[in-house]
């Protein structure tokens, strides 16, 4: 009975993902009819060349990036909440986004010193590489710590401290920055799925798929860690190896997504809670695919809202995810604590 319910939910959410995918292609500054979108995707033809360009060059990569980012961030948030046994942990507790931000800040400042300040910079490979280098750097610090100490609380605190320290460094750098460089950096921290172009989306997809499959393989260690380190060890889990693999997996997912889309808040924190309460389970074999689907739907919707259908404005994705995510988390925590 429970199994049937889960299958029904998975199918329902899979349909939602497809619906949100098309919604992202249809809505935007101009609405493009569904039939035209389908014909562009399948036959690569449309009654309007402009529509074809908008869908293929701009909306399709952004739509895919949103689905991938939602899926990846939610899965890594799930891993962090389980590993730290803390409901408010998320993909960024290890300091990954702080590291990526630092890489980007250094890069934008350096670029402006050489007189490069175009907004176009934000969708270039160089910014992705800068963010990835920053994230990898932080990952190695975390890796060394988790290898040396077997203590997740220490890892959590050190992650937060690294984040704090790096924010301070970035603020110092900002005070020396030109206005253009400052604006570019702030735009990057807003988060956007539009920076990803048609070539880059392939690489993002590859990394996210690898990360998600990797995390599915970590289901058993994650399930054992639910009861804490001592029980996990006594049921045969080598927790040191397990934690290093989990940190690696989360870093791959959160690091690559932040590199391509900027920091996207709250999705990774809220979606695992939604998944747990919808599927009524703590089993990671179910929660991981559930987070993939629900995360994709939510990030896709946020992308639609951020594009403010019918107008030329674009809102910061980060603001939308926070506005949607914060009440969801509050609602879920209130609902769970009623007994």
């Amino acid at each position, binding site marked *: 009975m429970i199994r049937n319910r889960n299958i029904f939910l998975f199918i329902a959410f899979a349909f939602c993902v497809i619906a949100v995918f098309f919604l992202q292609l249809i809505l935007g500054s101009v609405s493009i009819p569904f039939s035209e979108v389908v014909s562009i995707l399948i036959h690569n033809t449309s009654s309007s060349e402009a529509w074809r360009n908008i869908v293929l060059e701009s909306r399709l990569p952004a739509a895919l990036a949103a689905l991938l980012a939602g899926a990846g961030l939610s899965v890594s948030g799930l891993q962090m909440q389980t590993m730290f046994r803390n409901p408010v942990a998320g993909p960024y507790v290890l300091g990954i986004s702080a590291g990526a931000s630092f890489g980007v800040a250094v890069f934008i400042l350096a670029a402006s010193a050489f007189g490069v300040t175009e907004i176009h910079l934000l969708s270039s490979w160089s910014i992705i590489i800068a963010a990835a280098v920053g994230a990898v750097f932080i990952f190695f610090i975390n890796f060394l710590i988790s290898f040396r100490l077997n203590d997740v609380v220490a890892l959590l605190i050190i992650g937060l401290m690294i984040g704090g320290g790096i924010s301070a460094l970035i603020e110092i750098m900002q005070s020396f920055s030109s206005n253009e460089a400052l604006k570019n950096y702030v735009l990057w921290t807003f988060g956007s799925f539009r920076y990803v172009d048609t070539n880059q989306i392939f690489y993002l997809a590859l990394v996210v798929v690898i990360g998600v499959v990797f995390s599915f393989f970590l*289901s058993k260690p994650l399930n054992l860690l*639910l009861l804490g380190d001592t029980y996990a060890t006594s049921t045969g889990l080598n927790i040191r190896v397990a934690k290093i693999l989990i940190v690696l997996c989360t870093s791959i997912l959160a690091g690559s997504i932040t590199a391509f889309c900027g920091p996207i808040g709250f999705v990774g924190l809220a979606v695992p809670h939604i998944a747990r309460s919808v599927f009524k389970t703590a089993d990671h074999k179910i929660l991981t695919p559930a987070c993939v689907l629900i995360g994709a739907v939510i990030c896709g919707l946020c992308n639609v809202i951020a594009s403010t259908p019918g107008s030329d404005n674009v809102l910061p994705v980060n603001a939308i995810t926070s506005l949607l995510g914060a009440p969801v988390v509050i609602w879920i925590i209130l609902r769970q604590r009623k007994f």
Partner: protein
Amino acid sequence: MKLKAEKLSIGYGNDNTIFPEISFVADEGEMIALLGVNGIGKSTLLRTISGLQKSVNGTISVGEKPLEGLTVQERAKLISIVLTEKIFVDNISVRDFVSLGRMPYTSWLGNLADEDLQEVETVMAIMKMQRLQAKLFNQISDGEKQKVLIARALCQQTPVIILDEPTAFLDFRNKKEILELLSSVSKDLKKIVILSTHDIEASVQYCSKCWLMTEEKKFVEIARSENFTSEVMSQLFIESNRHS
């Protein structure tokens, strides 16, 4: 299968030995109470026997196998534990919680095979907790939670089960129920059950012997006798008198 310790010293390295020279033999079917004042090293001893902590000196063996040198996976099939710390996990059913005890026997993905499901079923029946199985773990009482933790350990099918103060948060009725249950588990399933406790009067009558960790750092075994409880009490009393 026997659990043996020879000249075991526990603690954190040579400079920080908490309790020296512990030797004991426990046989299958025995339930043993580990007694001693707070801070004497009961938990450390239990952690050392469980393999969660290295011993300073000496050896522990289950059957013929010395514990040192076993992998965590091998150890998980010999010794299971029940801890005092409270567990908070949302959205996990009692059944799924108990099933986690089967993990040492499952493949890399942790899927339960038919024999695993069968074992979970059997343990639920032994513990008389079938009516609980669909409930959520965080919605049952403390006494029921303790039963779930014991059931999880039983599912691990280990010859040795170690419990750190299993009756600490329970009322009198629950204490009695848990102790009776552990006693019948040790006898019927031929397991070695070791539990630390401060509820001497309540627990000693169910045990086949007691291990006393005295304040003079002596490890004393008291075998079951006619006036078992009073003998244990007087031993404890003498020890504490001698100390003061």
